[in-house]
């Protein structure tokens, strides 16, 4: 069952790399680990017959967004997070609060797993209905994107324009006159 093995390898890589993203204090390594996690997720998308999403994941996420993050980490010469930086004067800033946050995350995963186990009809193989040729077709995807979802597509373009202008305005130095 190579398919099952590939699934477990990729999901293990994704989960392990994501755990390392939040598991250590150097933001540089966090960004690199997140790129590895995105690569593994792209492999999972290919397994789910979504090649367009996989390629977009690599190009947009690992290629563009993560390079933006890397650029900022290097630009700010981001300091390694210091464990002694905790301000211990305020009760709300004790590490116990952080442990509470970890507990909440653990509770979330238990709750989600419980909900998944309770819900029926999810245990069947994932390639349930539909034609693989239709689902994985980029041509069909483009047709649907530019007909049924054309309004959302245009709204997204405006969103990106606004984000671009906003980023330029926010990152401008105080004294600069445009």
């Amino acid at each position: 069952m190579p398919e099952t093995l590939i699934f477990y390898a990729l999901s293990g890589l994704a989960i392990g790399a994501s755990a390392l993203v939040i598991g250590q204090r150097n933001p540089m390594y966090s960004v690199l680990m997140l790129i590895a996690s995105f690569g593994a997720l792209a492999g999972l998308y290919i397994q789910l017959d979504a090649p367009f999403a996989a390629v977009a994941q690599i190009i947009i996420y690992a290629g563009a967004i993560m390079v933006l993050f890397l650029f900022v980490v290097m630009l700010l010469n981001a300091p390694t997070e210091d464990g002694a930086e905790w301000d211990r004067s305020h009760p709300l800033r004790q590490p116990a609060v952080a442990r509470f946050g970890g507990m909440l995350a653990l509770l979330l995963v238990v709750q989600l797993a419980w909900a998944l186990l309770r819900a029926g009809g999810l245990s069947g193989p994932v390639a349930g209905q539909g034609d693989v040729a239709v689902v994985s077709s980029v041509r069909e995807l483009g047709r649907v994107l530019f007909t049924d979802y054309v309004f959302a597509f245009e709204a997204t373009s405006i969103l990106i324009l606004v984000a671009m202008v906003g980023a330029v305005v926010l990152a401008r130095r105080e004294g600069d006159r445009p």
Partner: protein
Amino acid sequence: MIPLSHYLIVSAVLFAIGTAGVFLRRNLITILLSIEIMLNAVNLTFIAFGRQHGSLDGQIIVFFVMTVAAAEAAVGLAIVIGLYRHRESLNPDTFASLKW
């Protein structure tokens, strides 16, 4: 064949890791990275369900989520740069001027 629930469990674990990162880390850049992990967990759910129902809508929503994530990263990182210029720190506890 891999059951749908396996994909959903992977997605749930990734989402929980992202949540834990937002709670636990004390670095604005790592917090933004955790948000990206959560967005990706949701993307995996969309694609798995879309495959299950033989529908393209999941992949289209993932496309929109990616563009929104790009916009969010651009604006968020611009805010981080601005904050760093003011306080020379990336610790979110430093930016507590609005707290009583």
